[in-house]
């Protein structure tokens, strides 16, 4: 099939970008979206032109590197699918496809479709971990965890940190990402200990990195390739109120 692509081209962080038209000829239905772009890029290179820069790594939907907004939806319109796992059979001959980078103040464009997502990393540095002390490896089942808690934690831990939630959010908020991390750790006994400190630190870091606030639009959940539920945002809110209450009580007792 033949497609008309409109792709965001931007030479560098401080350049102004624009949508540029490219034609994709003889695209196979069995290609993935990124393979289709590879073919377009080969054509550009052959003609001595600059290929389109885009992020990718595993191409099997687990690393969270691929990050394209396809026709106005991060990762494209197929539910619970990263764009590297999106196949061309979901398009038809003659389609026009708009391809844009993640957009948010916290995600400056590096080049074309590649954005700098280290702001998400900095949210993680602020508390997205469990402080451990070095020593022997603990026994596998030394700490008992109920099946329910293990499953809830796993559901939250499915987040691959791609940032689609932020790209989809009308407020450029990182609430679903942060909520997944906060909930994943707070549900497990090892993470529970630092839960109050963590939720305060991570939400503060989110604001500090230039992400917006959550207005409960739930665009994030709709585009998440792992189907992370916004119930975890409710959990983050509960954890935050709990932390505020603990702090208030402590300050009163001092």
């Amino acid at each position: 099939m033949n497609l008309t692509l409109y792709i965001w081209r931007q030479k560098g962080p401080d350049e102004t970008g624009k949508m540029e038209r490219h034609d994709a000829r003889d695209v196979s239905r069995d290609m993935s979206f990124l393979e289709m772009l590879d073919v377009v890029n080969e054509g550009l290179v052959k003609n001595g032109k600059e290929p389109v820069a885009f992020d990718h790594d595993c191409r099997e939907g687990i690393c969270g590197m691929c990050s394209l907004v396809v026709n106005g939806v991060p990762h494209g319109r197929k539910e619970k699918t990263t764009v590297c796992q999106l196949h061309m059979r979901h398009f038809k001959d003659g389609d026009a496809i708009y391809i844009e980078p993640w957009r948010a103040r916290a995600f400056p464009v590096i080049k074309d479709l590649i954005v700098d997502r280290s702001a998400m990393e900095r949210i993680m540095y602020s508390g997205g971990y469990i402080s451990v002390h070095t020593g022997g490896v603990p026994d596998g089942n030394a700490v008992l965890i109920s099946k329910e808690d293990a499953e809830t934690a796993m559901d939250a831990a499915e987040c691959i940190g791609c940032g689609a939630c932020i790209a989809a959010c009308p407020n450029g908020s990182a609430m679903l990402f942060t909520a997944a991390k906060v909930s994943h750790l707070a549900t497990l006994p090892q993470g529970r200990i630092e839960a109050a400190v963590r939720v305060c630190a991570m939400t503060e870091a989110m604001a500090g990195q230039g992400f917006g606030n959550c207005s409960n639009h739930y665009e994030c959940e709709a585009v998440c390739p792992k189907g992370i539920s916004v119930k975890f945002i409710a959990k983050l809110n509960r954890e935050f109120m709990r932390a505020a209450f603990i702090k208030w009580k402590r300050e009163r007792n001092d």
Partner: protein
Amino acid sequence: MRFLKSMVGRKVVMAVSGLVMLLFVIAHLLGNTTIFAGSDSLNSYAEKLHDLALLIWTYRPIMIAAVFLHVFFGIQLTAENYKAKPDSYAIRKSLNSTFAGRSMIWTGVLLGVFIIYHLLQFTFQVTDPAISADRNFDVFGRPDVFHMVVRTFRRSAVALVYIGSMIALAFHLSHGIQSFIQTLGLNNEKTLPFFQKYGTLVAVIISAGFISIPVVILAGILKG
């Protein structure tokens, strides 16, 4: 206060102040329905309410605080959100967000202006002193609130302002009700669709209830 600087803390204030206003709006609507039973019913309700000085002077400061906090943080949060999303997509497809949700700031500002107008009209009664209930009394010597309301809404321009504002309220609450439940952490994946659906229903019922008053007066069913 760190709580009032944080993202979630300010949202909690929005949710609680929104809930306080929602409860007030429901009570206000129930009180207003006495108008359908006629002049005696509304005027005696209004008089009793004013006799309960303690009640009035407890809820008034609470309402003033709620409105102030809600407006202040609503504008502040929205301004931050605009800043966090400076560039728009060439093509944008909304999947879950609603028109009501995306226009909260505009329906909110409309409601703010409406609240001021409404207070000037029926609380301070300065918009049309000739029909003010503080100057006109019914046969029992009570302030004639019924007469004031009916005279006011007989002017179709005023009635339309009220109807329009109550439509804005329906939009604001259709997002707001499910939103405050989520903000206060009272949701899981099973309850969310339930609150979204019934939140909208409650919003529409409240709005329709208020709208019925000017409509009935304009239609000439309630006369005074």
